[in-house]
């Protein structure tokens, strides 16, 4: 199907591409060719568009929250209030929607669905994921879940916090049932993606790519997929039970019906703690790739990084009670969960040290993906270390439900997981769309995001340790200066993301064409054209050590790298 000269064209891509269909984007045309595609690359791209769109939506609500908190008392929420909802209730709706959209529509699907779907099969030298139709099904489930959320937005929003704690959620919160149904459906999307990735990694590795010769992104994706399969169903049953509680008053989670609200928290966090590892493990996998490629050096301690991914996945199931230290969880349980929480930091720390050791003695290029990788290491260190303060029983009594917690989880969820995701987007962008983005604008955007993030959230550690509670619409005047600083930071970040949207779109329509291997990497996805052909490879690439950069040479004629083993 591909003209024979395409094999040579992988390394000598001409500036003017021939007009014949030669990659996955123009392989077939028309709405249905996308809507009913089984091509993992197209599915990944559709996911990326959806996820980034939802990120913008969640971000808007974040800006509303931060703007409201600019000053004590009502700032802007009153403008959206109505006879049926006070400004406080409007504010409650904003932070709930922000949290729910970001957690369930952006970060959890984020890297696996958008980047994993695209990259994983090609990294394996395979033609597709194990179950392409299930993959498309996952995508549509995501869309339907998103529509449920959009529905609640038009119906007055949902409140009570993204955690939906009883008894409030069972008796008084608004619009809970459509939101819960949306999350339930999103859960299945996540489960099916997890199933697909586990089987793909088990079954579609090429001969010669043993488990310990896989790229580290695959280890991260595999560990994530295991969590998706084992943890998400518990969320599913929790949501069903909550719906039953709300409609039939079954008496399991709400005291007024005979239930136990702490039991709800056990059920909820049994999933939601492993969920945060669903968010972080793929991003860590990406960072392993970024640091290695952009330091042009083999990852230090490959086996440790691989094992630590599995360790984090397993340990992540044993610590959910650390969200419940102040919820009348028994002292014995508190102690057990606190101790295990400390131990889960060890594999994460191992990764950080390995990344640093990878950079040491490497040939570091401060490309945009590398900047994101470095930002990840910095922000994750802060996020992870502050987690230890929260895992310590005595300090958590003081910090629980304050802005200290808010700052901690934004450092790990946004500063780490999302930064890792955007690092991946910037790393694989030339592969996915076949074009480069404007490097200068990208660096400006990165700087605004990085500085803005720290301004926004570091301040919140101070706010929290001085007692500012979370989810509060109003506050004492002594917190005002911190809130103002934090809000300014959030606008800096917003500016950074707007610039990012601009240059990414600009690259699609007019960016410099990218060669197959612009970064000098050696994992398999860089041995096919940018963008890849429909079947991923014109001819099957040789399987070699994906972290051996000795055979990778820069070719100025094409503005990229070539591999002596896979010309």
């Amino acid at each position: 199907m591909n003209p024979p000269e395409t094999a040579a064209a992988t390394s000598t891509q001409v500036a003017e591409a021939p007009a014949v269909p030669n990659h996955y984007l123009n392989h077939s045309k028309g709405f249905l060719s996308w809507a009913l595609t089984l091509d993992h690359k197209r599915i990944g791209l559709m996911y990326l568009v959806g996820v980034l769109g939802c990120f913008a939506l969640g971000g808007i609500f974040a800006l509303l929250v931060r703007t409201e908190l600019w000053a004590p008392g009502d700032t802007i929420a009153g403008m959206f209030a109505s006879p049926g909802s006070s400004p406080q209730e409007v504010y409650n709706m904003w932070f709930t929607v922000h949290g729910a959209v970001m957690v369930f529509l952006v970060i959890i699907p984020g890297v696996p669905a958008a980047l994993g779907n695209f990259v994983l099969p090609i990294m394996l030298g395979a033609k597709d994921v194990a179950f392409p139709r299930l993959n498309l099904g996952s995508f549509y489930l995501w869309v339907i879940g998103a529509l449920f959320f959009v529905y609640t937005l038009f119906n007055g929003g949902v409140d009570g916090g993204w955690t939906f704690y009883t008894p409030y959620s069972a008796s008084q919160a608004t619009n809970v049932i459509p939101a819960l149904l949306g999350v339930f459906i999103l859960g299945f999307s996540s489960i099916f993606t997890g199933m697909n990735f586990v089987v793909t990694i088990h079954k579609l590795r090429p001969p010669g790519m043993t488990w310990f010769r896989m790229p580290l992104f695959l280890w991260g994706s595999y560990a994530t997929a295991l969590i998706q399969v084992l943890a998400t169903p518990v969320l599913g049953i929790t949501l069903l039970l909550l719906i039953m509680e709300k409609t039939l008053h079954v008496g399991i989670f709400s005291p007024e019906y005979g239930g136990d609200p702490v039991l709800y928290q056990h059920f909820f966090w049994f999933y939601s703690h492993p969920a945060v590892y669903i968010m972080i493990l793929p991003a860590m996998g990406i960072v392993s790739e970024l640091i290695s490629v952009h330091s042009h050096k083999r990852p230090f301690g490959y086996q440790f990084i691989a094992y630590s991914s599995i360790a984090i996945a397993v340990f992540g199931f044993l610590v959910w009670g650390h969200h419940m230290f102040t919820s009348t969880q028994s002292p014995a349980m508190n102690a057990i969960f606190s101790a295990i929480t400390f131990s889960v930091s060890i594999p994460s720390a191992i990764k950080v040290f390995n990344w640093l050791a990878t950079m040491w003695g490497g040939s570091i290029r401060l490309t945009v993906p590398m900047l994101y990788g470095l930002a990840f290491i910095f922000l994750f260190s802060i996020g992870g270390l502050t987690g230890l303060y929260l895992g310590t029983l005595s300090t958590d009594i003081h910090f629980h439900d304050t802005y200290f917690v808010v700052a901690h989880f934004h450092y790990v969820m946004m500063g780490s997981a999302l930064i890792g995701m955007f690092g991946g987007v910037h790393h694989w962008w030339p592969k996915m769309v076949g074009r480069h983005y404007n490097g200068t604008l990208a660096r400006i955007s990165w700087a605004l995001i990085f500085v803005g993030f720290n301004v926004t959230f570091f301040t919140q550690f101070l706010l929290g340790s001085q007692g500012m509670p979370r989810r509060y619409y109003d506050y004492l005047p002594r917190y005002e200066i911190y809130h103002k600083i934090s809000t300014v930071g959030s606008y800096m970040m917003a500016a950074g993301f707007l610039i990012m949207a601009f240059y990414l779109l600009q690259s699609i329509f007019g960016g410099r064409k990218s060669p197959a291997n612009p970064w000098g990497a050696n994992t398999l996805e860089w041995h096919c054209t940018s963008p890849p052909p429909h079947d991923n490879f014109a001819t099957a690439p040789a399987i070699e050590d994906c972290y051996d950069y000795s055979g990778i040479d820069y070719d100025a004629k094409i503005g990229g790298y070539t591999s002596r083993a896979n010309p």
Partner: protein
Amino acid sequence: MSEHESHGDGHHAHHPHQAHHWDSMRQQFEAGKLGMWLFLATEVLLFGGLFCAYFIYRANYPELYEYGHHALDKVWGAINTVVLLVSSLTMALAVRASQVGNRKQLQAMLAITFLCGCGFMGIKAVEYKAKIDHGYLPGKLFNYAKTIEHEHEGHAHDGDHHDDHHGDGVAHAEGVFGAPAVSVVAPLEQTAQAQPAAPPSGLSASASRVAGDHAEHGHEDGDHGGHDGYLPVDGRPPNIHIFFSIYFMMTGLHGIHVLIGMAVIAWLLVVCRDGRFGPSYFTPVEIGGLYWHLVDLIWIFLFPLLYLI
């Protein structure tokens, strides 16, 4: 350039059911099974949440189960267990038939499995109807008024009718009330004459009115078929609706999965007519079978936990 056979591009005698990204039918088959086992793990954990609720409430409110499980008919439950076990056999035989390429036998076994599913749901309907008739429904649907009516209609039994068929559920109830169960014989004429608007004696705040004393008035059910699983109002725990919430949610979710399994079997019956299943391709039958066996597995646990103890 490449020493290896690339994935799936050696176009020699491909089986018509081999997808393009697989190297061989065996690889595709094993991947399908692996995928299905992962899905079954999610089902285990989905039901697991309900089992968790079951065990937590059993541990913390034992009187709920000691009192409530008399409403469940052991005989129907046991028959349903047998029905599902037989259906598991016929499903395994169906898989076997597809593996040896015997289409007629495959269809017959699938059909019998489907009928067993119908039988199971039929018995379930009978059981549910009995509950509805008594007003024993989950949560806020528990029909207290109807239970009092029943009491009036003469279901009340002789006070010294001792029930000894239900393990030790009688003597050990303490539960959250703390006090050991004390039998208090409430004259049943009083209960029978209670006005619908007045609280039946079983709901008084007295700590003695816990599960233990209901045995005095217990109604024998489940020792042979056809009984209506009546629970006396006297001695009823105030939170009895929780027992029925758990019962209906567990058996209801299980029933939904039986229906899904039956739909899968029906689909297999339709598509197997063209003879596509044989020794080299029977994956859908195999993984449909795995799903059906899981439905059976869950019932193997549900039955004793709800009906027998």
